């Protein structure tokens, strides 16, 4: 198998070869970027959240009458709903909250250490107004201090104590003991382990919680339910019925596991990754068709040449390898250009979406995939070419 002869053969079919090269180039470019986006989405969906995603359900709801949206009727409704939910077999704990975790954005505000606003101010920190069981439901472990056990009014004469997540406490108090100190939202009562709050926040692990009555429910509220492992399906079926039996004047927007909620958080990226992967797959298919057609047509057109080679002593294996070799060579050239186009495409995509740069090892993996596809597509035409009989092929010479 001579490299020079293979190059000559490709040069003889320069238009067809150029078309194939362009396809291979673009296929590799798209394949690389689809791989990048898919791996980024996969990494996001597997990032640590600090939450037992499969064992926590979130019910988002709102009273449908104005009377039920105000205290004391609202307080009574919440008590009755939580009591009802706790009777469902499989429920370990239940709590209310003005909002659930794992959101794009929601109720948030700035937090700073009292007296040091200029240095410590953090914006867009999610604020949770919750019942005392909230920490147990989310499985947050106490790091420091003591968790409040009874609700304190948010607009009462005394500021309600706050509970910070560990990451936020470190950002605000940098090595100091935060318990007993004050932030603008109230005195710090405790620090708990991190959990994923809101995606648009400065840091997803920054959260502030206050055990307090809900401040208002115009945007609805969440009931968070901790379950025994493996009971999510059965509990879920009963929750809606139980809540409607407690009081029918409610609208239930959804009942979701936190795993579903987490997946929804990256829905856009997931969608784009699926579409790009699908497109990359289609592009591979199109390239395989092209490689097949190219090799097949070439084999048919070169019957005489192959016949002469066979008559002069070339073995079937040599002919087979030569045809495959031409495809491999073409793929290698295409891949070389493809890497350059992939980098350009990556930069273009980065202007409209968040996509990481292509690591050095990825083009090799993409090349391996492309080589496999091209080999597969060329196999049959190359096999046909080896069957050319020297006698028949040279008859017309």
């Amino acid at each position: 198998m001579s490299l020079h002869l293979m190059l000559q053969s490709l040069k003889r079919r320069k238009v067809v070869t150029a078309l194939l090269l362009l396809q291979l180039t673009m296929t590799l470019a798209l394949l690389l970027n689809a791989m990048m986006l898919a791996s980024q989405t996969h990494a996001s969906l597997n990032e640590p959240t600090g939450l037992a995603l499969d064992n926590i359900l979130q019910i988002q709801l709102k009273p449908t009458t104005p009377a039920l949206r105000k205290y004391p009727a609202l307080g009574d409704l919440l008590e009755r709903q939580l009591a009802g939910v706790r009777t469902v077999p499989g429920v370990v704990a239940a709590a209310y909250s003005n909002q659930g975790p794992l959101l794009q954005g929601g109720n948030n505000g700035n937090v700073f250490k009292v007296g040091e606003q200029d240095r410590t101010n953090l914006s867009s920190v999610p604020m949770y107004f919750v019942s005392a069981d909230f920490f147990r439901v989310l499985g947050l472990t106490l790091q420091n201090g003591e968790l409040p056990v009874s609700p304190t009014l948010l607009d009462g004469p005394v500021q309600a104590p706050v509970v910070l997540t560990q990451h936020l406490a470190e950002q605000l108090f940098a090595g100091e003991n935060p318990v007993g100190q004050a932030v603008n939202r109230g005195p710090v009562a405790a620090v708990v382990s991190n959990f994923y709050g809101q995606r648009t926040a400065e840091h997803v692990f920054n959260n502030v919680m206050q055990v307090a009555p809900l401040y208002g429910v115009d945007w609805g509220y969440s009931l968070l339910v901790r379950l025994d492992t493996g009971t999510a399906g059965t509990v879920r079926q009963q929750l809606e019925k139980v809540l409607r039996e407690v009081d029918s004047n409610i609208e239930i927007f959804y009942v979701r596991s936190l795993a579903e909620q987490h997946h929804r958080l990256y829905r856009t990226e997931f969608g784009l990754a699926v579409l790009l992967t699908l497109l990359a797959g289609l592009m591979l298919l199109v390239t395989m068709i092209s490689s097949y057609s190219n090799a097949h047509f070439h084999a048919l057109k070169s019957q005489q040449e192959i016949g002469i080679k066979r008559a002069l002593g070339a073995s079937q294996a040599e002919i087979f390898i030569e045809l495959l070799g031409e495809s491999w060579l073409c793929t290698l050239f295409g891949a070389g250009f493809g890497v350059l186009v992939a980098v350009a495409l990556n930069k273009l995509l980065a202007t409209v979406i968040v996509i990481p740069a292509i690591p050095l090892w990825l083009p090799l993996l993409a090349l391996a995939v492309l080589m496999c596809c091209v080999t597969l597509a060329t196999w049959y035409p190359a096999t046909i070419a080896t069957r050319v009989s020297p006698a028949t092929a040279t008859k017309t010479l």
Partner: protein
Amino acid sequence: MEQFLYYLRASLVSIRRAPLPYALTVFIMALGLGVFFANATFYYRLNADPLPHKSDKLFFPMMLLVPWECNDSTCKPPPVLSYANVQKLSSSDIPTAKAAMYSSDAYLRLDTKQPPLPVSLRITQRDFFRMFDVPVLHGSIWPDDSARNEVILTEALAEKLFGHSDVVGKTLLLDDKPLTVSAVLQNWQMLPRLYDANNRNYTNAVEQIYLPLETGYDMNYLSNSQSSTFDDTDYRQLATQGRTGALHQLQYWVQLDTPAQQQAYRDFMHNLATTEQTAGRHPAVINNQLTALRDIVTYFGGESGDIKAFALVTLLFLLVCLLNASHLSLNRYLSNQYELSLRRALGASRWQLQQQMLVDVLMLTLFSLAGALLIGFGGVQLMNYLWPANRLFAGWDLLLLSGLLVLAWLSSYLVTLYPSLRASFGALNQQLKE
């Protein structure tokens, strides 16, 4: 006609002789066009101008009129305005029309025995309907911007509630408060819904109920899309504190028909900022924005990056498919070269061969168009499933379909042009020998 039928028959004979390469060519063309078309549907509709005759005359004024200091030129005005700031901005008579607004949710019923029905609200002022060309079916729009216990319904909601659309004067309960229907709107949809563009809200449907702004504040309806409090205002006290404090939740639009009006309003905003600064109510640096309706999505940075990224990729995919189809087409024509050369030898002119090529193009266009429509439909369904927020933009119109037809024809022509030229030219004796 006879000649055309002859070319058509010749084309069909050629397809039947080697159906697989032709089917592959059609499949690849349909695939490229279909995938491109599916995304182009969303791209075209998301970037459409819903009011082309006045999208350069409607403006959203924004000022950095907030109670905090900011001397950094990167500080942008809040994307929603407070009630007090809207009052200041609407004190000018320069605009032809002006309306403040926000969206909310409520529960509706005809009497207390009925279960409440969740509905979407737009709480706004009289000029909203004129500015955004909202068609009125029955009744009339409020005569002024004062509080009144009246609502305007969409035709679909009126029919759902009462069984018919002419319900002007009827009473209903909105969150248990009795209100009278003053008008019914013809079914309408503004896509994209640019009057509420922040946070990608422009992909939502228009609201079902319209309530006067003052009544909305009196009834303590909070915005369901974005509300920010920049001072100690209690957002639960919208009727009182919400009207005076720095609780920002309003969109505000003005209609400025001429460049002179636009300049005059800019001057008015600058004077207002200077006056407020002098009075100590504008501690931040002056940063006034007067953004036109057609630029509002870009201003808020809400352009659909995913659709744009996919548009780029589908364009590349279409290009690859066209290259591939050209490749297959070239092989097909080269295989048929003997026949074409024979025709030339028997006296067929190159023009006649090109006519044959045009009939081939027509056939390829029809087959690939049919395939592209099927694949495009599937692609739109898949994208609806993956990105449900864009589902309102999934429809096809005549312009879009005509675009696809032209693209399919152009693609087929390009795919067929080089192979047919190559097969029609060249040394005849050499071609006949091969």
